[in-house]
């Protein structure tokens, strides 16, 4: 096996979709889901694909798991081409695509795993033993859920079962699409810890998609920021934050009705780097968050703008950027 588990070179994919116009008519639209994406993933690391909804994360995972044909470019998984050597790729991957679907409701968790295990080429006592192992690994045994019908599973159990299926044939490469979506904090932590240990101790290569910055920072060794089908930045969480090290994040709390807010915001856009995020704090206050370069100079401009706008501030903070700030910086603040 090559050192590189996954190698993607200028991968592109377009979708044809329809926009409804009235009762029966529709207009065709072309959506560019991927625009020449390139990256690699090595064995023993967890690489995160981080981006907002519709960025191209799931499209990338589907291509790598041989469930979608790309329009152009190349993707090699375990050294094999995903298009021309799909059957070889399938032997090397474990896939988790959806937390809440993908199993037969009238079979128990154990029976579902036996079913899919046989599709994966496992059989007999080996299969049954492996099913017990993975159920233990994901924590379904401790919940005594092995012999419950799938339709009676909670969301957390479904997620664990989905991960168990991905691990059934002990694949060297894991492709996990938002594996903690909808999970409670305990279940989500359990999944994250397991994923990290699979990479660290067993040397698996893991691609992990998420739109949760906090989670990406916890789980991933490297992060690829993806937006509108392109990778806008990549690196370790620290490297990404250092990309904007000369940038600081300013957090203001202003009183809504105290002055001319709109004028302030339009002039602020000239000072801020990247987008401006706003959040309502109750009825009276608004939190405004933005990034600035050359802190001293920028801050004095901001103070002047606040005075000109006649706005009253409740608090004013300058903090080191988080991964969320990095994301806002590179994607212009759209989530």
């Amino acid at each position: 096996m090559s050192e590189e588990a996954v190698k993607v070179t200028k991968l592109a994919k377009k979708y044809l979709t329809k926009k409804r116009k009235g009762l029966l008519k529709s207009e065709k639209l072309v959506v560019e889901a991927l625009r020449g994406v390139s990256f690699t993933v090595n064995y023993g690391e967890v690489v995160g694909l981080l981006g907002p909804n519709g960025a191209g994360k799931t499209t990338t995972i589907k291509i790598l798991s041989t469930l979608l044909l790309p329009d152009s470019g190349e993707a090699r998984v375990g050294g094999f081409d995903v298009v021309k050597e799909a059957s070889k790729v399938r032997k090397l991957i474990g896939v988790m695509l959806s937390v809440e679907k993908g199993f037969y409701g009238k079979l128990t968790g154990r029976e579902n795993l036996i079913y899919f295990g046989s599709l994966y080429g496992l059989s007999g006592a080996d299969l049954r033993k492996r099913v017990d192992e993975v159920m233990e690994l994901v924590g379904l045994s401790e919940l005594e859920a092995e012999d419950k019908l799938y339709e009676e599973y909670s969301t957390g159990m479904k997620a664990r079962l989905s991960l168990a299926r991905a691990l059934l044939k002990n694949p060297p490469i894991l492709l996990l699409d938002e594996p903690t979506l909808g999970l409670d904090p305990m279940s989500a932590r359990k999944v994250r810890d397991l994923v990290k240990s699979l990479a660290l101790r067993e040397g698996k290569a893991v691609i992990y998609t998420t739109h949760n910055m906090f989670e990406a920072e916890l789980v991933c060794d490297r992060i690829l920021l993806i937006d509108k089908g392109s990778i806008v930045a990549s690196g370790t969480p620290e490297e990404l934050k250092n990309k904007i090290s000369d940038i600081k994040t300013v957090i203001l709390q202003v009183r809504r009705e105290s002055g001319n807010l709109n004028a302030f915001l339009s002039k602020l856009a000239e000072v801020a780097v990247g987008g401006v995020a706003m959040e309502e704090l109750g009825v009276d206050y608004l939190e405004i968050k933005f990034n600035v370069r050359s802190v001293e100079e920028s801050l004095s401009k901001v103070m002047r703008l606040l005075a000109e706008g006649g706005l009253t501030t409740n608090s004013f903070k300058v903090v080191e950027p988080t991964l969320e700030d990095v994301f806002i910086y590179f994607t212009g603040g759209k989530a």
Partner: protein
Amino acid sequence: MNVLPLIKSEMLLVYGELLRRRQALFTYVAYPYIMTFFIIFVGSSVGSLENFEVRVGVNPFLFFIAASFNFLAILGIVDDVLWSPIYDDNIGTLPYVLSSTTPWFLRLLIIPIPRLVLTIILGFTSLVPLFTYFEGVEGFLTSLLLMGLACLAGLLLSTFAIFLACGVSMLMGESWRLLNIVRPLMMILLGIYYPRVLMPFTIRVISYLLPSSHIVDLTLYTLVGGGTPEVLTVLTMLGLGIALAIAYGPLSYGSTKSLEMKKLREGVKT
């Protein structure tokens, strides 16, 4: 590739989805009786049982229990094949089926095998009791023969069913609506409830193209001919059925591959 684990896992699905659910199993077993009595009820209000016997040459109870059994047995064997592409797509198992190491075509081909168990259960709960009641030991033996023929009819329809299922899914989205037209048409053309000898010529020709229609005809010969049709007739019909089933093989493989490629081009739904 070892197919035995695949057959066992499909058996697990049959067990989980039908055999373990008492309500569903009870209804399935009751169906031949329900359909028989329904048709005989309405039929006798528009005519009489004697007219039927004169026209068809068989006791109507035996005919319709055999026909209903055939109908449900064949449908029970191939229905999961017909619905598989749509059902797996809807519940989200299709990505895992396609990304597994088992070829999709092979899985579709295996689906009917465990479902033969349903045919046997249905036979022993409907066909065997009624035939034994009406015709004694000879009836018992006839019912076993009919069960065997139904199993064969179901299996021989598999390749055609795969071709149909994948072909229909290729043609349109919401393909379950088209399938709901194709299924009953197929059951009519098999000549189960309405012998194909009574059909107009054009329809009969189309019926000949279905592998299992020849086996269904054999069933009728068995009922009408007092249980002993001519050897040449039997061999001809069996041969036609088997030959057609094999002939549909390449078509069914091709349609499966085409549908798979279509799904991959569009992206398998997750």
